[in-house]
């Protein structure tokens, strides 16, 4: 039992030393990803029927790391919807980031 506790303590100490030696770099990376992860990505679109009459307005918000990622995310949503509901036409789309 004593050996097991010692081993566990050793592991924590080793891990701690590893983190300590790379402290600056790791903290910088964490800071950057933290800023990127929290940028809001807002997607709005309308669904029209085949005649061009509006059926629904849809709004969704998430967080994406980049503007490009937000645009790709929004486009993917609309493509997936069109595949499931082909008679609907997507219009008035607006993708807003940051």
């Amino acid at each position, binding site marked *: 039992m004593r050996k097991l506790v010692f081993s566990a303590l050793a592991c924590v100490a080793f891990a701690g030393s590893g983190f300590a030696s790379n402290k600056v770099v790791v903290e910088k990376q964490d800071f950057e990803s933290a800023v990127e992860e929290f940028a809001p990505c807002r997607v709005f679109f309308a669904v029209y029927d*085949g005649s061009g009459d509006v059926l*629904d307005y849809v709004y969704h918000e998430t967080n994406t790391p980049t503007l490009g990622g937000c645009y790709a995310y929004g486009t993917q*949503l609309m493509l997936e919807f069109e595949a499931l509901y082909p008679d609907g036409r997507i*219009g*008035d789309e607006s993708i807003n980031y940051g």
Partner: protein
Amino acid sequence: MKKYLTLFFLFMSVSFFGQEYYKITYNIYNNTAIPNTLNAYLLFNVKTNQTIYKEDYTTQKQLNEEVNGEKKLLIKPKAGIDKYFIISNDTIQELKLLGNVYVNVIDVNKGQDWKISNETKTINNYKAIKATCNFRGRNWEAWFTPDISFFSGPWKFRGLPGLILQINDETKKYVYNIEKIETIYDTNIINEVSDLNKKNLKKLTVKQFIIEDEEARTNAFNAVFEGRGTYTRKKAPRNGIELIYEWEEQVTK
């Protein structure tokens, strides 16, 4: 000369009515939130009395590409979403998409209650007579010709003593104009309908379709946003070609 002219017109009318198949092309103008046009075809088999109508979404064109000052194409020609109508005396079977699967929507509506006026005009060299009706919440003005004795027209319109050449609702949001009449057998459309019918499509009433279509759209939204967090959906009020149905009118009366 007069004798020859009479003979010529007699020959023309015999050759026209002697044909077995007709294909009538209409141009539809949808003056909706996104104005657009598309073609539709009415097929008639004189021998079997079979009437088929198709709305061809591969021919759809958006008229106004500018939205809020930006050039945007929202309506694009699309394959695989065409609507087919099989018209008989008692019913109209509409083969159309429910989600991404074709279904057979059976409309038991027996046509419109027309009022025929004395007004006439000429359309495509045919003498046309004006008729009006109210159908599912919209007032319609039709011009039909008794010279062509098909008691039908585009979409769900029928019951006039002649072919409908032109029809629009009073706001001119939906306009149908005849483009041409051909005496041909369009095997492509017949085969498309036949292929769909072979699939034993699920049969629905109009009321069931409206409920299930709403569910299909909700399911599509839920599937798309599953695992992606919440979304806000605002439904627009009904503003299509049919505004109110018989079962809804009965409730409001």
